[in-house]
């Protein structure tokens, strides 16, 4: 690891609210997308004459399409409840990283063009013209938000900054200013089928490599099937699971679970990506296009169940939006969605999270876990933001907190939660979500991870925790990269199904 070009926050084991330092992160900018990247997903290549009015028009259009945006821009009273809730504010001290101030970057423009007081008395209500200076602030600070929704938990009106950030990014894209990282990936997934741009044959190679590895390791021929028509389960997982560490360990875990339970399953080369960066970028159409590949694959392969691997934002999109976007779910009364819903087996939730599937198998005795196999691990669990505040597991509210923890406890003997106020609905984002998982935002990522790193330090120092269990591909990549800045060993990062993989008894049940 090269020496960082910025100051890494000192860990204290608890979280302090810093004094504001205006402009602290002003200059930090993510790389912009070039014309080719922009045009590939249907946006103008660059800013052109008259972009200001175009941006205002786009805002007006979105205000009519999104109640969230309309209500949230009106309702804020500047009470300050959210000001100390964002991990990027806590880590950077830049006041424009306070949720309300981040929202205000757009609210100021909204007031100027869409409200009477803003048209008449802009200074009085803090309204601003749409200028290049404002746009620069938008670009900088709307890419220092991971859309984690922590602020929305604490707002008395439920104002969700993620909605504003998404809208702002959509407005910027529509005038030709996009972010390289997110938009390049959105192009790849729509062209090739996954965010990595890994074509089908390469994927098949990789999977057969896993089959050899697992057999060498366990003596059991665990399969990693792909494009198998008539399989019961279609597994859709983040493509990082195919090549990145520690992600791969969880993929091996899913395969072992299906093997041990005797469930026929398949991956799809057409839909080899659970991640959906359309969410980050705020475009309903792009998000729908990406999700459509999963519908197509499910129809093509004739599967009965759709299961999603460990990925936070993907689970939000799958759980909360798939039914809306493409009909993956139940309860539709329209022909379009019913086409798929008639095929699916509704004795299972559709779609299901892999943790729901595995825990259910454990409870029914369909798979057996040997907890002692994980006895060298003292585990804590990081609630991923999108799972915690944008989705659910199981059939009761808060199941998304209970089910992964039950699964960890079923797989291992030693577990300690991090401090209250840093877990469950109050969890801190890893600092790399929402399209920020790129090296050009390393300063934002490292600083934004400091609240989580502080809470982690507490359980490491006081309970000897040596394993941070995750259910999100972005969290896994982010923590392996940034935790070393804080003196933690990156090998402490892993998936919940990595624990399952270690504990599962293959061939015990016949």
């Amino acid at each position: 690891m090269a020496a960082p070009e910025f100051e890494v926050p000192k860990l204290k084991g608890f979280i302090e609210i810093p004094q504001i330092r205006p402009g602290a992160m002003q200059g930090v900018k993510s790389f912009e997308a070039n014309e080719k990247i922009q045009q590939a997903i249907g946006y103008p290549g660059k800013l052109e004459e008259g972009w200001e009015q175009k941006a205002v028009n786009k805002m007006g259009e979105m205000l009519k399409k999104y109640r969230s945006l309309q209500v949230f821009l009106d309702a804020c009273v500047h009470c300050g409840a959210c000001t100390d809730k964002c991990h990027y504010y806590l880590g950077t001290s830049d006041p424009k990283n306070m949720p309300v101030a981040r929202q205000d970057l757009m609210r100021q423009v909204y007031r100027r063009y869409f409200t009477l007081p803003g048209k008449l008395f802009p200074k009085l209500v803090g309204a601003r013209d749409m200028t290049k200076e404002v746009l620069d602030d938008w670009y900088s600070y709307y890419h220092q938000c991971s859309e984690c929704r922590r602020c929305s938990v604490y707002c008395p009106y439920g104002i969700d900054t993620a909605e504003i950030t998404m809208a702002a990014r959509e407005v910027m894209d529509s005038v030709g200013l996009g972010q390289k990282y997110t938009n390049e990936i959105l192009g790849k997934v729509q062209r090739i089928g996954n965010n990595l741009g890994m074509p089908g044959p390469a994927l098949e190679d990789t999977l057969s490599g896993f089959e050899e590895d697992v057999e060498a390791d366990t003596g059991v021929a665990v399969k990693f099937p792909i494009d198998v028509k008539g399989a019961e389960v279609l597994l859709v997982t983040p493509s990082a699971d195919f090549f990145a560490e520690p992600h791969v360990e969880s993929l091996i875990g899913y395969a072992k679970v299906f093997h041990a339970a005797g469930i026929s399953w398949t991956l799809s080369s057409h839909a080899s990506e659970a991640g959906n960066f359309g969410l980050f970028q705020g475009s309903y159409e792009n998000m729908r296009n990406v999700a459509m590949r999963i519908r197509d694959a499910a129809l093509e392969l004739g599967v009965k169940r759709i299961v999603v691997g460990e990925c936070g934002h993907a689970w939000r999109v799958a759980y909360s939006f798939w039914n809306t976007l493409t009909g993956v779910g139940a309860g539709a009364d329209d022909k379009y969605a019913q086409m798929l819903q008639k095929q699916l087996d509704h004795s299972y939730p559709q779609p299901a999270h892999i943790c729901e599937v595995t825990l259910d198998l454990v409870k029914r005795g369909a798979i057996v876990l040997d907890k002692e196999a994980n006895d060298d691990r003292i585990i804590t669990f990081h609630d991923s933001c999108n799972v915690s505040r944008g989705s659910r597991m199981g059939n009761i509210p808060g199941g998304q907190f209970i089910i992964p923890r039950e699964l960890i406890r079923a797989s291992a003997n030693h577990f300690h939660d991090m401090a209250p106020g840093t877990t469950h609905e109050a969890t801190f984002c890893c600092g790399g979500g929402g399209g920020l998982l790129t090296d050009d935002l390393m300063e934002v990522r490292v600083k934004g991870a400091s609240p989580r790193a502080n809470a982690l330090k507490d359980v490491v120092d006081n309970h000897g925790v040596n394993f941070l269990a995750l259910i999100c591909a972005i969290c896994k990549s982010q923590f392996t990269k940034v935790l070393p800045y804080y003196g933690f060993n990156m090998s402490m990062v892993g998936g919940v199904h990595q624990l399952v993989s270690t504990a599962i008894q293959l061939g015990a049940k016949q």
Partner: protein
Amino acid sequence: MGMSGLTLLYALLFYLATLLLVVGVGYRIYVYSRTPAPLKIPTTPAPITRSGVVMRMARELFLFESLFKSNKWIWIFGWMFHFGLFLVLARHLRYFTQPVWGWVVLIQPFGKYASFLMVAGLLGLWARRFLVDRVRYISTPSDHLMLALLLAIGLSGMSMSFLDHTDIISLKAFALGLMYFDWQPLPADPLLLVHLFLVASLMIVFPISKLLHAPGVFFSPTRNQVDNPRESRHLAPWAAQLEK
């Protein structure tokens, strides 16, 4: 009875203020209800039934649940102000009803002293705008003006309740006269005139200011949606067009 210019001015002011308030807020509510929420975005964990959502909204409205989780100072000041305001407003119904409704008579003493709660809450909220650097940073001139306006309304009203009583009989006759279009003279008491002018100003700015948080909270998708996206399909009309 001859009508003074003052009475005429205030009568017209209140008709105008009421009209702007009702039409303005009505229009905002129309806009909010007409604008679709294309995606399921309740902040989870969220209720999985409609009645659960009603309970969640009720806790937000009456207990300020999210604010309680967030910041105890803002919660206590905010709650003092809003609860105080509610009692004060309820007490004011006595000027618009003849005979006065039973429950309004009952809360009369509470309504009087609730004004202290209201003003104390406002002072607390205003102090935060100066004392907490983060809140100071986000405060605009209009944020301060709004607090000044509410405080001035509270203090001018309290002065009449506790220090220098106005001619309450004539005032009530004026208020009832406005309602029944049988105009009666308004007492020319400076405190009363200030108080009424500020109230009318508040009514006028309501639909174009952050006071829209009052109707807005009912339409917040993160709070009013049921968490059931897997069980039933949620589709906005403009989104359904994409499937054609």
